[in-house]
């Protein structure tokens, strides 16, 4: 028996005996993908957030990799921060905006914010959302992420600006 899933597009199979292993440990130890950060280990701080797509037609969801067992990931597609850009190249707009707005300081919580914000922005691309719904959606997406350095102000500014850009682009496209 094996558990199969994709990480950043690459297929992986692990023995079902490892079903209890946490996703973050698999990412770090098996794949040497250490962009996903371990902080509290109990799913509170959300620094370890990755994106998981359960089926071809399903939306991406934020998943706490420190508290997610491999057994629950069979058949899924996982995206980590390493899969968002091509190294230093082809940054996602939220990564660019985090940089431009000096959104983070030590940067340890940043991959978690990147993943949660990316999922939100993807959602905005595909669903009908008005501007006055935006603040609530941002709060829902990143409001429970913990950052000790920044006081959150610049993260929220960056996500809001990028989200407004998405909405504006959609309006432009419709117009």
């Amino acid at each position, binding site marked *: 028996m094996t558990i199969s899933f994709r990480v950043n597009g690459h297929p992986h199979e692990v023995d079902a005996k490892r079903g209890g292993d946490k996703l973050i440990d698999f990412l770090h130890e098996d794949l040497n993908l250490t*962009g996903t950060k*371990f902080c509290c280990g109990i799913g*509170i701080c959300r620094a370890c957030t990755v994106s998981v797509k359960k089926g071809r037609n399903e939306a991406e969801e934020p998943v706490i990799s420190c508290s997610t067992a491999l057994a629950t990931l069979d058949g899924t597609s996982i995206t980590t921060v390493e899969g968002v850009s091509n190294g*230093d190249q082809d940054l996602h707009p939220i990564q660019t905006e985090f*940089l431009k707005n000096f959104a*983070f300081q*030590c940067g340890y919580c940043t991959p978690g914010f*990147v993943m949660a914000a990316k999922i939100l922005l993807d959602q905005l691309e595909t669903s009908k959302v008005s501007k006055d719904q935006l603040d609530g959606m941002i709060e829902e997406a990143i409001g429970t992420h913990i950052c*000790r350095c920044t006081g959150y102000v610049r993260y929220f500014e960056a996500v809001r600006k990028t989200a407004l850009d998405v909405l504006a682009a959609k309006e432009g496209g419709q117009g």
Partner: protein
Amino acid sequence: MSTKLKHFQTAILSRRRFLETASGAVALTVLSPSGMGQAQTADGTVPFTTETPGVATQRIDGLKKVTGQKVFARDHTFKDMKDWKGKPHYAMYLRALTTEKVFKGIDRRYLPPAAKKARIILGNELNASQRSPQIAIRRDLLVDERIEEEAKDQPKTRGFDRPYAVVFDLIVQPGNVPDFLGQAVALLIFDDLAEYREASRAMAFQDDDFQKYGDAAPPKDPVVFNPKTTYVKYDHGGVSFDYANANPYSYPLEADSYKALIADALDARPDLLRHDFACDMRAMDPMFMEPESGLAWHDVENKTLNLVLGTQSPDGDFSDIVSMYRSSDAPFKLDAVVLTTCYPGGGFGGRDGSPFSLMLALASAFTDGNPVQLMYDRYEQFRVGLKRHATDLTGQVAIAPDMKLQNIEMNMRFDGGGRKNLSPYVASLAALCAGGSYKTPMANIYAEAVHSENISGGSQRGFGGPQAFFAIETALDDVAAGQGWDPVALRRANLIGEGDTTVTGGPVQQELRLREMLDRAEAHPMWADREALRDEYAARGLTYGTGLAMSLQAYGTSGDGMVAAITMDETGKLTVKSDAVDMGNGSATTLGVVIGPILGANAVDVEMGDYTLFADTELTTRDKLGTRWDNPDWTSKGVGSSSACLTGLHQVHVVQQTALALLEGSIMPAARILWGMPDLQSSATAWVDGALVLRDGGADPLPQDVLAGAVFENGLPRGTLGHAYFQAIWAEADYDTPGGQIHLALDGLSFYMPGADKPTRVVRQNAFGPAAWTRRFARYVWAPCVNVVGLTVDRGTGAVQVENVLSVLNAGRVHVPALVSGQSQGGVAMAISYALHEDLPPGMAGPANGTWNLDRYHVARAADVPLNTGFRPDARSQELIILDETPADKGAGRGIAEAVMCSVAPAISNALHDAVGVRYSSLPITPEKILKGLRA
């Protein structure tokens, strides 16, 4: 790719120094992980700079961090250490559960199967140098003379952070009583990752099952960590006495008699208002996001210890680790240490002198030459990581009917926890901060840090300021409320300024602008319209209050040495190297851009944490003949630990002066050759679009690559290495250079010549530097801040919500505006968090029991913090007003990383008092305390 490889190899070659030990020299090599510094993008652009020298458009470390590349110690696995050999091992420490009973050992019968396979090392298996390494006296502390005095009174052998007459072992020996909770009682070494994981899971929260304790031990005598701090100031009736100006040797005795004179003076004034106060605060966890983690490999063949660490104090950690293996009984000798320094995932002081580095190095001795990883999880980080001290403060302010302060009395007791660490020096700075932003003719301040069974306290953001400012600022507000005085007017009547003296008697020699800051705060609608705001909230059924508090946080220590190098390649691209570590505060970014206006371009690379630089200066801190600045080899201090507040002034200064040396000593001579103008002065030139031009025209511009070509062709210096020392004033000297003699505010200068790896020293001339005795001023430079907080209180639940924050800050020159406001925003959030939420009980009710994590320790979330910037009455907001720079700043920035945070907590307490009429003086002010206060 080739750029990165070259960078890496250069680092290996150039960053090397030696530490002399009793058993010979140990070489240190400092490496940067491949992810650090600034990589260029494929098209050769450098994304963090703009065309504008001096301006940063993003963090220099930003690209690596936002894309999840390996920059932190925890990112590094054995797979990343290509040259390491052997089988990976994993270390785990078990932690003491009591300080009242004899530790008897580990009962292996009750260990889970996976742990039974581990090698178990107890304290009695360590030899003396491992058990209690003879560490160096901490180097960057307050008043060095006092430390020297203290050292004279103590045995020459000093164990690891033990107070006098108490020995603290790294691992408790069976038969002994643990010295503090969380002290290691056993080391477990696993050679299999799966077994390590399985054992970790099975053993979590089960310590009682396998740790054996015996008889109750008699209680130990209380121990105070030396040095204690007493500041007695008496300036009354024409008699003047204070710490700074007294004879250091007779001061302790004289201070007692002046305390009596203060009491007499106060008693003689029955018209004085004498207000007693008391406050306290719980310990606080720095809660940096990356739990401490590292890799170590003792390469037996090459007698080399390889380490991967993320620390604020690589220099001190290196020295401490070497001390473990330098005595005659050391299990092995080391010829070299190779330290890979990583960006710390947050610091806030919690990685300054952290015992983690030693615990990792200790583990490496028990893996038979195999590499080992030690990685704390969050429970263990809460259990053993350095804390901000729980503190009790009592005192009295005496104020005349004209609102003038007459005396500040304060007694402060810091719970230092198990290890001494930096606790007494934190207490010492708190004693200075007890004077607040005010002048007082008399003061009687005492601060001590005591040993206890609790988790060790250390150097946390604010370094004693958060405690002391809370005490004085809430006390003044109570006086104002009690007398019906305006709290701003009371403060304004007592503001300290240039020409006044602090509670140490040390002079304020810097423009502070406190009056202007108070004026700005007072005129702001948050304060001016506070009654209208109260009414508006009341109309919505909410209880609103406004509070104001000030802080005058010093930055730097009692004497700071710092070092920097700037090198240029053949194309003119610039690299900055610094001994400082960037904890996320942005110092790497700042240091990369502040050279821009001087050298015409920002750095393309900044290498931080380079502890080898000081050795390359060839300066020494030994001064046997006492000739000080007359000895061209001498400086007062090499380098110290990294603190975010040391960037704005100190690190920027040394980088800019070193850049100036490169301009005058190398680039100008090259320009003179190229232009055929042997008498050209730099004042006749300017940088325009990355090229050097004549201000009055008449010659072709010289682009960077052309200048660099001339530098290399003519054998001119390709780089400069500078050392600076600040202690109220900068050390200065003249230096002979290829461009003629120049005067710099540096006490050491070297040139990197083309083709040479090592720099060549320029012997300084006509040096002038700070006098030794000015150390007794304690601090010299200040980052003042006024905070106004508006908040609402839910009288039903006791919940408090901070609605608005105004911060008025004197930051001097702002080098990178986004970094300064980012520090301010982070400081506001941290202060809200510890003022209202963060609560660490002492003893086994707290994190020492190993069950604490973020599910019960509430760190501020976004919802706890006003997120809008710029005051808006209709939305929760925070506004930062930074005073415009004045000529008196002389282009210098101020270290503001702690400044904003320190006065937020007292402003919250003052706002609560304004809202509900109750003084909350015990932090954190939890909903339970709010409700209790409302009921009282």
